[in-house]
């Protein structure tokens, strides 16, 4: 099936976000706007009521076809802090498991007058598919699809980097671990490139960091020392344990010995480097506890920033939907006027 261009699908006539499916095709201006808006929401933490009325009266449906308590919870909290009503749909026990098609389920949710779907799906392109087949009045936010994209995770990482390290220009960033299977890494590479970091290094064994990534303009390192030397930011990825049994990796202990982030290997990076991880952490597999809990770690800041970024994306997409509808209505009335004349 042919899919429309992500940029055309995501942006309205005024170039504003109306869905958030992928970072592919989004320019620096819009990524910076997301970060600036997220900064405004972060400062809300100083209020005694940590809630604003922006999405009051709107209904947000968390449509999770793949389990992820952490991501679902942060989206739920973000929507609630925007005063939306939130429905969590557990697909494992819902109609799709009884044979109803995805499109039938969507049509039912649309008929309930939902305003936004937050979609997590194991198949790449699922959020895109839903955005194409849904009524245009519903904003679709991709909360992770297959190996394809996890744009809000990448943007919360960008917010964390900007808050700790300032402007992106001149920064060296290492992404370490299972790049091959990581939708987070794919989105991070897009975001870091667009925002103008000096160098992105992908670090890991050849089985998990194949040469095909060179096309994205990154540096590939199969040695941890080469990858970490003088970097400002280290992004550790979660190693999925099921891959240890396959041919891709010999064992957890072997991976930790070669690519694990410890106090010793951390010393190769700049003295003020920050350490990030999308979670959940496998302690002693990709990262040592002393580093995960140490002074360089900003892993818990990422969680806080995640709520602000999701609030920013949700409010911007809803705003883009409103503007798009207004535009369509004004065009329709212009046409009607033309017919009358």
């Amino acid at each position, binding site marked *: 099936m042919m899919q429309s261009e992500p940029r055309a699908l995501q942006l309205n006539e005024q170039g504003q976000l109306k869905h958030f499916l992928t970072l592919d095709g989004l320019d620096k201006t819009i990524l910076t706007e997301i970060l600036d808006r997220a900064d405004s929401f972060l400062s809300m933490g100083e209020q005694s*009521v940590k809630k*604003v009325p922006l999405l009051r*009266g709107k209904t947000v449906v968390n449509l999770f076809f793949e389990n992820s308590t952490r991501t679902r919870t942060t989206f739920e909290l973000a929507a609630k802090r925007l005063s939306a009503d939130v429905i969590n749909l557990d697909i494992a026990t819902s109609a799709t498991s009884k044979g109803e098609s995805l499109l039938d389920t969507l049509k039912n949710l649309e008929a309930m007058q939902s305003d936004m779907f937050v979609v997590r799906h194991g198949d790449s392109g699922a959020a895109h598919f839903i955005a194409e087949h849904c009524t245009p009045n519903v904003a679709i936010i991709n909360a992770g699809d297959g190996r394809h994209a996890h744009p809000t995770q990448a943007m919360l990482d960008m917010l964390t980097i900007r808050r700790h390290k300032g402007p992106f220009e001149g920064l060296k960033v290492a992404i370490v671990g299972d790049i091959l299977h990581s939708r987070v890494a794919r989105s991070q590479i897009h975001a870091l490139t667009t925002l103008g970091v000096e160098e992105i290094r992908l670090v890991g064994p050849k089985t998990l960091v194949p040469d095909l990534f060179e096309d994205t303009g990154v540096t590939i390192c199969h040695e941890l020392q080469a990858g970490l030397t003088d970097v400002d930011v280290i992004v550790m990825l979660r190693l999925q344990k099921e891959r240890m049994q396959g041919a891709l990796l010999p064992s957890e202990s072997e991976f930790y010995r070669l690519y694990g982030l410890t106090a010793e290997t951390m010393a190769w990076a700049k003295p003020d480097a920050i350490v990030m991880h999308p979670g959940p952490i496998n302690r002693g597999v990709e990262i040592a506890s002393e580093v995960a809990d140490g002074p360089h770690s900003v892993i818990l800041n990422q969680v806080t920033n995640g709520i602000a970024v999701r609030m920013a994306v949700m409010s911007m997409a809803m705003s883009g939907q*409103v503007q798009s509808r207004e535009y369509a209505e004004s065009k329709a009335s212009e046409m009607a006027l033309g017919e009358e004349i």
Partner: protein
Amino acid sequence: MNLDIDRALSALADNLVEHCQKKQITNPIVVGIHSGGVWVAERILSQLATQEALATLDITFYRDDFSRMGLHPKVKQTVLPPTEDRHVILIDDVLMSGRTIRAAMNEIFDFGRPASISLAILYDLHQAELPIHADAVGEVINLSATQRIKLSGPSPLVVNVVESA
């Protein structure tokens, strides 16, 4: 129409000082509403008896027209100390419908319950759509239906009456 902004600023400061004396308001939190209100507040802060730094409010997330107009593209930072049991003086450049002030009060209450809120306005257009009035005013202006006030700043601070599109 020729507007003397210095005269209006001076009158606003005098009326506000008088209001604070009458209400026995001491050491208030002075809050400017972005952007014009902040510029006006910066001009008159030194004449008010307060130890507090100027606080600023961006009411973008509290507007009542989000579902019609969408999100304002530029959101500035709200910087407000705890307002619990404090006297707050809210300053804006123009009072028209009163909707901005309603939104500002909603936001202030999300920071705590103040002892009181007073409203100081540089130009009151007397076009209220809500039961909101200013406690201190620089100047009352009557405009025709096609006119509106435009404040430019921060330096120099200039006011113009423009024909609305």
